């Protein structure tokens, strides 16, 4: 039996879970203000104490490895690293987009998590569920919403969208994809530490860990064209 303590602070959501191979033992998720730096440690403390365990009792610590909010990712990674160091546990970083897509296990059609990267851009990837595993159709990318929609139009099937980008861009998405756009229900549309945990357990059992000393989250770069556009708009070029 593998037991993991997972954190996700990659978006406006702060989520902490303790999960084993068969069930979620506990999960706390808040989506209220961005106050990760003040609530994350108390959330971990609370979940462990309610479960009558300490960090020593889990097999590994998992966190989101990006992309997402720069500040949020850093808070999550720094906290996870500290816990790993203190309790001498391995670290497993899980890509945020994978964990979002995993919320939609066994769904039919294309799964497209979108994280708002601001200024009209998104962090995204495109997945399809194949047999028992999520298969990436398009790799992690930072692109404009328009470019993503152009890519999605090429798939001739329903697209399930989730992640905080659906709040910022919902109308535009519907405009571009029409009834092919399906939005995940509220219970599934945001990051959850339990999804990070479930994916981390799979990696743990394969013996695949990250080095907590050198681990850094990955921040996707925004498209250069967009930055140039900004400049042109300000009359600088």
């Amino acid at each position: 039996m593998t037991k993991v303590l997972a954190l996700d602070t990659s978006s406006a959501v702060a989520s902490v879970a303790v999960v084993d191979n068969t069930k979620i033992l506990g999960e706390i998720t808040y989506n209220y203000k961005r106050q990760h730096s003040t609530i994350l440690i108390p959330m971990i403390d609370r979940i462990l104490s309610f479960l009558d365990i300490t960090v020593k009792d889990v097999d590994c610590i998992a966190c989101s490895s990006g992309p997402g909010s720069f500040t949020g990712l850093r808070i999550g990674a720094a906290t996870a690293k500290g816990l790993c160091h203190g309790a001498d546990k391995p670290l497993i970083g899980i890509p945020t987009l994978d964990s979002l897509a995993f919320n939609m296990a066994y769904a039919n059609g294309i799964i497209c998590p979108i994280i708002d990267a601001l200024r009209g851009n998104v962090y995204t990837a495109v997945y399809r569920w194949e047999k028992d595993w999520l298969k990436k159709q398009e790799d992690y990318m930072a692109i404009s919403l328009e470019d993503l929609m152009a890519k999605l139009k090429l798939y001739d099937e329903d697209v399930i969208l989730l992640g905080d980008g659906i709040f910022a861009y919902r109308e535009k998405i519907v405009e571009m994809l029409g009834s092919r756009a399906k939005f995940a229900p509220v219970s599934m549309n945001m990051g959850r530490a339990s999804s990070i945990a479930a994916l981390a357990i799979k990696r743990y059992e394969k013996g695949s860990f990250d080095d907590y000393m050198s681990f850094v989250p990955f921040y996707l770069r925004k498209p250069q064209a967009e930055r140039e556009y900004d400049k042109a708009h300000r009359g600088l070029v």
Partner: protein
Amino acid sequence: MPVLLSIWNLSIRKAVMIMEFLSNSPEDTEDIGRILGSIAQRGYIVCLEGELGAGKTQFAKGFAKGLGINEHITSPTFTIINEYNGRIPLYHFDAYRINDVEEMYEIGCDEYFFGEGVCLIEWANLIEDIIPKENIKISISKDMEQGVYFRKITLETSGEKYEPVCRKIIEKWDIA
């Protein structure tokens, strides 16, 4: 007391308003900052420009007080950004040590620019490329001929979002 020198409305083509003030002491500069801080809203971007020692941080101290922040404010010269919790969050930047705007992207500046609080950016002119073009610009300049305490402070708002700013400043000014 600071002096309100002039107000210009250049909104013929785009929404631009300019106000000029004279400050004769650090306290005057703080007072102007405090008035702007007291009317600042979520999502406001305030750019501070002026040479070293012009009074940008002095202005920031007043601005923070206007937001109801009682903490001691210092230039985040090495940390680049300091966060304070007032009536709304204050993100106080100092771009003096930024060599390349890429460094700003790396600290996640967009999350602050498009976030839940007010951004106050010292040396904003050094990172002009990446700052949203609708903003409030405060330029502080010295004039040694007028004395060591003399500062001219120009406030320029660009964008519809900031249209009420000048009117609100005048209202506060009349009360003060």
